[in-house]
């Protein structure tokens, strides 16, 4: 394994932590946090894909001459994915509010009307 690949490994670890939170926590808000963690990991992964060693932001306004620029596409993709993450988090939290209204709890073990 190459130590230079550490950013990729960190992103993967974030995703793994998120999945762990999602699978093993009992509180609905913690599940939302788990999903957000996975999202953050994926976003971080996308951004790291675009980096070029020594590169500057791909913006020409007052840019230093003759510098390498990092790739713009991953940044655009990350922007999109962040907005999508915001949207899903908002909807998930709204559902959590309503579940709390109906069931009076956020414990997944007690929110189990739908079985079988």
């Amino acid at each position: 394994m190459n130590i230079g690949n550490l950013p990729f490994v960190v992103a993967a670890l974030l995703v793994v932590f998120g999945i762990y939170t999602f699978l093993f926590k009992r509180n609905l808000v913690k599940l939302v946090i788990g999903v957000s963690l996975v999202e953050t990991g994926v976003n971080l992964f996308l951004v790291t894909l675009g980096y070029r060693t020594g590169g500057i932001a791909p913006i020409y306004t007052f840019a230093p001459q003759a510098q390498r620029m990092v790739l713009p596409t991953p940044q655009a993709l990350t922007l999109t994915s962040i907005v999508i993450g915001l949207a899903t988090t908002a909807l998930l939290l709204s559902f959590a509010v309503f579940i709390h209204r109906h069931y009076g709890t956020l414990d997944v073990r007690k929110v189990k009307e739908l079985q079988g």
Partner: protein
Amino acid sequence: MNSGMSIIVRTITRLVYGLAIVFGFYVIMHGHLTPGGGFQGGAVVASAFALLLVAFGAAGVKGKLNAHLLQSLEEIGALAFLALGFVGIGTAFFYNLLANSGSLFGGPVLPLGSNPGVFNAGGTLPLMNWAVGLKVMTGIAAIVIVMLIGARKEETE
């Protein structure tokens, strides 16, 4: 219902929220030249709205920020963005008709490479930034205000 937070937070908010809104509009306006754009600037403006909501409480902004008005504005932003996509349908959907056309936002970028930034360029980009900026600031503000009011109702019951 206890609306809002302490006097310190309220005073700071009064000082800061105007600046945040102005900065957000700056980010939207110069999206094609500097870091940022419609989404980022819209989020900054929405954060100013969220700050107001947190500092003054749902009751404090009642009548000033109306979720349904915000939603209507968001729809207008979305429709404007879609319409800008349709502008170039003569060639293809999302064709940048205005770029390098010499008309509005159609100026050439000179000199190429590092420059101080030509504001009158980018074709439909600045217009799209405005449409998306309007959409994002109103959309996020609507989500925040609706969720805050809904959650508060929960506590008082």
